[in-house]
């Protein structure tokens, strides 16, 4: 992890497969102008192809019978393809096509039909049958079981912190009567955080009540919100005894095993006990902590965690809620990464590892269901109607998992298959759960079995696209009552669904994708250049970014433009100090007004800027490429030649801008760098960790350049805010945002829903003041009504 910056330097970053994938997706998006910046090269390449290659390879590389066997398609990158042409083509006349000619023809072949992107572009878009992606699988299994719990997904309320019950004991009246039952006193309240050093005193709420100082106990309970998916480490730091429960609904029941049973305090010294657990992000989990002090001199208690991408800290108030929620089934089996070759994750590959993982997931779920059977089936051990209730649960579960109400014959089939005479009830349930969760109807959520327009299919797609999950009882009910037929009805339900925590979690995933935050996992900064940058700051910056993004999206206006134009940041004191911001009033994250010249939305956020930089300097090329593609939605090709940018090899007195300009001045480079450089240079006021800087190599920063917009207009960019204005107002930027959101939500190409889908969405977006939640909703409505086409088998 730490060695990333070095390897970044060694590698020509523009040729990493990852960036090629992005290039592919962008070419997809701008199919009408795929070679905007490379016209000449391709024209030359096409001419050479026609003359030297077409006879054998065919007009579109499809191969000519008896002359070549395989179509011209493959996985080589452009450089490797060029080399191969130089070496082997044309057959028996290998010297004919070398040097610039080979380069031109390779570039043409690559972009016209050879590359994955080209092939995708040349294939007519259609809604593809796909399996659940990893997040979809985890969410679906969790909810499928969870919906059978009472109050699942119930409203959490707004009251943060944890509910607390403090209990003290009156001194015994008669010391001789040792067996007298202790008289206790309870105080109810709540605590914003669990971070207490009681010393040798009683907690404040128990003082002044003539209680003994020797002993007291506290019970904290409520819920905890996990923002990210991943492994969380919970840490209890205490001098005393405790029991800690995470994700356990009925923790108080005698015999329930605690997540940490720390009743025994081996000494009165402070100790730490840990519990690691995988949690699915965007969800609330029940949490309970019972604490007791008995005769020990001192008492203290602190509840901390180390969330994924985070550092160890006291659990913040914003993650704690006073109300409890039911527990969630978590499939924590590692799932193989989903295919991202077209620029977004989708379930278009199955593999041995995947099948094993989902099979394992199904057995984990089966055990969980059996272990919690009476709760889920709302039955009671020994009750005469237990069998009946459990069998009804089985049918309900199957209907939900298989995404459609069961017909009478299906019910009978299930009863006969899983609940035969000699099968034990539990065994039948176990097998049924494994069967349902292995079924193609569950794993391939949009299989065109039956009428794709029927309301249950629509419900299923809405839940999948907005929540990455399965339809909840409310949606099923709407489908049953015929309330999911008209677009207006669908719009209404989808509008409500957009505000669900599951939808918020999915939106977080989108930002991860849009801002390419995968890079953040590998950040390591040079300690000498940036001594302030450590894991703690990195975690702070990540929190700051998401607090900001969430505040924009989930505000009433939900205005896309505020993603670029906001002149404030969320910061805690630690971060405020490093970035020269006004310090917030307390230790939590607060919205801090910044100088509008210095901060302008997400593109000036220090977290993003840190990811788009070298370990000891800025990187205008990284920043420029990112802004061109992801933010402004302008196409870029992979570079024509492989050049390594090594800042250290330049004259050390040159500024970063001078180095980059010198390196990319050739005509070939400028085909793309004409837009990359001005955008990258406009952010030169932000150093490698996103602090405002005014000088580079003792020379004043020059962040001004001319820039040709997607519409062909030349504008002067003076700095970040000018770029932000472009991003807020330019059509190509809107379109890029819409399309990336579309892909993230549906995992399907937008064109598959009609040639003009993106045009219509763009118009809708501008007509609705660029409201992001409306856009979400609109995409859901369009896509919920169309599914994978039912194509009766031709074999």
């Amino acid at each position, binding site marked *: 992890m730490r060695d990333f910056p070095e390897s970044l330097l060694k590698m020509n970053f523009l040729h990493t497969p990852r960036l090629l994938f992005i290039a592919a997706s962008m070419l997809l998006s701008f199919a009408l102008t795929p070679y905007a910046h490379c016209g000449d090269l391709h024209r030359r390449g096409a001419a050479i192809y026609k003359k030297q290659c077409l006879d054998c390879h065919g007009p579109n590389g499809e191969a000519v019978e008896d002359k070549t066997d395989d179509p011209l398609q493959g996985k080589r990158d452009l450089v490797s393809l060029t080399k191969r042409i130089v070496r082997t083509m044309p057959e028996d006349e290998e010297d004919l096509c070398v040097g610039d000619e080979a380069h031109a023809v390779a570039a043409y072949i690559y972009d016209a039909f050879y590359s994955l992107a080209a092939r995708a572009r040349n294939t007519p878009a259609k809604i593809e*049958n796909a*399996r659940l992606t990893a997040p979809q699988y985890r969410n679906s299994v969790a909810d499928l079981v969870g919906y059978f719990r009472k109050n699942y997904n119930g409203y959490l309320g707004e009251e943060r912190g944890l509910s607390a019950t403090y209990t003290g004991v009156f001194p015994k009246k008669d010391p001789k009567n040792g067996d007298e039952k202790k008289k206790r006193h309870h105080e109810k309240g709540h605590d914003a955080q669990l971070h207490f050093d009681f010393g040798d005193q009683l907690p404040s709420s128990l003082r002044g009540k003539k209680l003994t100082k020797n002993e007291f106990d506290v019970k904290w309970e409520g819920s905890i919100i996990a923002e990210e998916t991943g492994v969380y480490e919970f840490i209890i730091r205490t001098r*005393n*005894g405790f029991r800690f429960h995470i994700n356990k609904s009925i923790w108080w029941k*005698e*015999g*329930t*095993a*605690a997540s940490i*049973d720390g*009743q*025994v*305090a*081996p*000494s*009165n010294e402070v100790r730490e006990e840990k519990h690691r657990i995988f949690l699915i992000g965007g969800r609330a989990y029940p949490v309970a902590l019972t604490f*007791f*002090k*008995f*005769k*020990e001199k001192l008492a203290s208690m602190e509840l901390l965690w180390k969330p994924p991408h985070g550092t160890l800290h006291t659990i913040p108030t914003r993650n704690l809620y006073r109300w409890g929620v039911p527990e969630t089934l978590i499939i*924590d*089996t590692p799932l193989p990464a989903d295919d991202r070759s077209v620029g977004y994750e989708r379930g*278009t*590959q*199955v593999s*041995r590892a995947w*099948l*094993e993982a989902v*099979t*394992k997931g*199904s*057995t*984990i779920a*089966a*055990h*969980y269901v059996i*272990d919690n059977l009476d709760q889920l089936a709302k039955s009671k051990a020994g009750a005469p109607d237990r069998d009946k209730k459990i069998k009804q649960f089985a049918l309900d579960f199957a209907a939900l998992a298989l995404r459609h109400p069961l017909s009478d014959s299906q019910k009978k089939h299930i009863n006969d*298959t899983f609940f035969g005479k000699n099968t*034990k009830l539990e*065994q039948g349930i*176990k*097998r049924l759960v*494994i*069967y349902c969760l*292995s*079924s*193609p*109807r569950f794993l*391939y959520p949009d*299989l*065109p*079995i039956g009428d794709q327009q029927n309301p249950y299919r629509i419900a299923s797609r809405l839940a999948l696209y907005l929540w990455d999950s399965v339809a909840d009882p409310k949606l099923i009910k709407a489908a049953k009552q015929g309330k999911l037929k008209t677009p207006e009805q669908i719009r209404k339900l989808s509008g409500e669904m957009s505000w669900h925590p599951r939808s918020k979690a999915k939106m977080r995933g989108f930002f991860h994708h849009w801002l390419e935050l995968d890079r953040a996992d590998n950040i390591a900064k040079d300690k000498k250049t940036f001594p302030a940058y450590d894991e703690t700051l990195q975690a702070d910056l990540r929190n700051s970014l998401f607090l900001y993004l969430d505040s924009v999206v989930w505000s009433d206006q939900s205005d896309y433009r505020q993603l670029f134009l906001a002149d404030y940041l969320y910061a805690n004191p630690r971060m405020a100090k490093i970035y020269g911001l006004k310090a917030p009033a307390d230790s939590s994250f607060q919205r801090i007004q910044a100088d509008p010249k210095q901060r302008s939305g997400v593109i000036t956020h220090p977290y993003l800027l840190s990811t788009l930089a070298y370990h000891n300097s800025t990187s205008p090329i990284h920043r420029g490429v990112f802004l061109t593609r992801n933010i402004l939605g302008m196409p870029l090709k992979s570079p024509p030649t492989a050049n390594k940018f090594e800042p250290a090899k330049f004259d050390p007195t040159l500024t970063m801008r001078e180095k980059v300009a010198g390196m990319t001045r050739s005509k070939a480079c400028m085909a793309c760098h004409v837009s990359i450089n001005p955008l990258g240079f406009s952010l030169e006021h932000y150093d490698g960790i996103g602090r405002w800087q005014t000088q580079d190599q003792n020379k004043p920063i020059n962040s001004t350049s001319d820039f040709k917009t997607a519409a062909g207009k030349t504008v002067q960019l003076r700095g970040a805010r000018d770029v932000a204005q472009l991003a807020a107002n330019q059509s190509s930027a809107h379109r890029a945002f819409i399309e990336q959101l579309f892909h993230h939500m549906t995992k399907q190409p937008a064109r598959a829903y009609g040639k003009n889908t993106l045009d219509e969405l763009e118009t809708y977006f501008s007509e609705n003041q660029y409201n992001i939640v409306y856009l979400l909703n609109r995409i859901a409505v369009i896509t919920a009504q169309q599914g*994978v*086409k*039912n*194509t*009766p*088998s*031709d074999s």
Partner: protein
Amino acid sequence: MQRRQFIRDLGFSAAALPFLTGLPGLQAASANPSGKKRLIIMFSPNGTIPDAFWPKTEGSQFELPPILEPLKEFKKEMLVLNGIYNQVRGDGDNHMRGMSCLLTGSHLFPGNIQGGSDTPAGWASGLSIDQEIRNHYQKNASTKTRFGSLEFGVAVPNRADPWTRMVYAGPNKPIAPIADPKQMLDKLYGNKKDAKSVISILDPLRDDIKRASTVLGKEDRHLLDEHLTLVRQMESDLKESTKETQLSHPVPDIDPDIELLNDNTPQISRMQIDLLVNSMANDMTRIATLQQMRSVGQSRMHWLGIDDGHHGLSHEPDDNQAAKDKLIKINRWFSTELAYLTKKLKDTPEPSGSGSMLDHTLIVWTNELGKGNSHTLDNIPFVLIGGKAHGIKTGRYLKADKVAHNRLLMGISQSMGHPLKSFGDAKHCEGGAFKLSA
């Protein structure tokens, strides 16, 4: 959670197969078939009734008082050992020290757990003898097994304190016994049972995939075709992994879906014993503990016609004959369970070796107190059964002279092939390992 974790840890992949087929224990068995030695320690709580437990006559001509009477069949394989004292003092009441020092021989750390008397205490300051031997066994390829040790519990409540834990992996590191036979079955054979469940649904699943692919166009069908191929591969792997031939003893045919209720204790006890013997027959472990209930346990043994809580009864004075009769009944029940365990081992031929499994297994039955109503740690009940391979001289009643129980723990370790110079608190080890052989 442990169950799920276990399942997670085991895949269905080919990579997981060696885990089943190449168990180190099985290899060890073939390398050194006759020298196998096992240890089972069974615990029952709240002291014994001395005059119904200790024989009167020393040597081989000893009688079997009422509590030992259920073991009469094994009189020749039995060593009743009197005069063993738990001399560990310090923090904690006698129940706590009786329990948490029983197998550790180490004092308790100061702590916050208050007993009925004395100072509060925490966990034991050292590991227990079973874990000491386990660690030694796991270091050596010829004695290493899949689990190293297994900790069985019967009616042990799910709470961690010095009264519920006797096995320690180290200072402050108690190990919780598994008191749910279902959890234990899953730990031992979970992957195999799951594999069978998966296999059972593959027929309808294949049909479903085939049916689904008929509604898809050529390109989309490709994904399902691949899926189907993968399912077929998985099926053959799963079938391979569930072949019974790999186990010398089949998975016990028990119904583990039993509620962990007090009144189900007799069935749970038998299931746990079945699983214990089975796991040893399959050489998944050579060390096991069987913890019946817990110190200060208040089990109400309705199945014996006793409605009072065990611990409450154990406090009754000696002249309360009714209480005494009930306590004898309770302790007889424990020795009946011990007899069931012993018989199972005796009836099972030593896998790939000579004699019975009992010949290669040393069973130790013990208690945290000498006597319930006095809470004494003197004359802790010890009954040793089997252990022919260990060189234990059985068929006798032996009265030791106030021997610290640390020395007995060392003697047990020595008989298992792991001699120790000292174990637990060193001051109680003077004189070395207590001699159990002839």
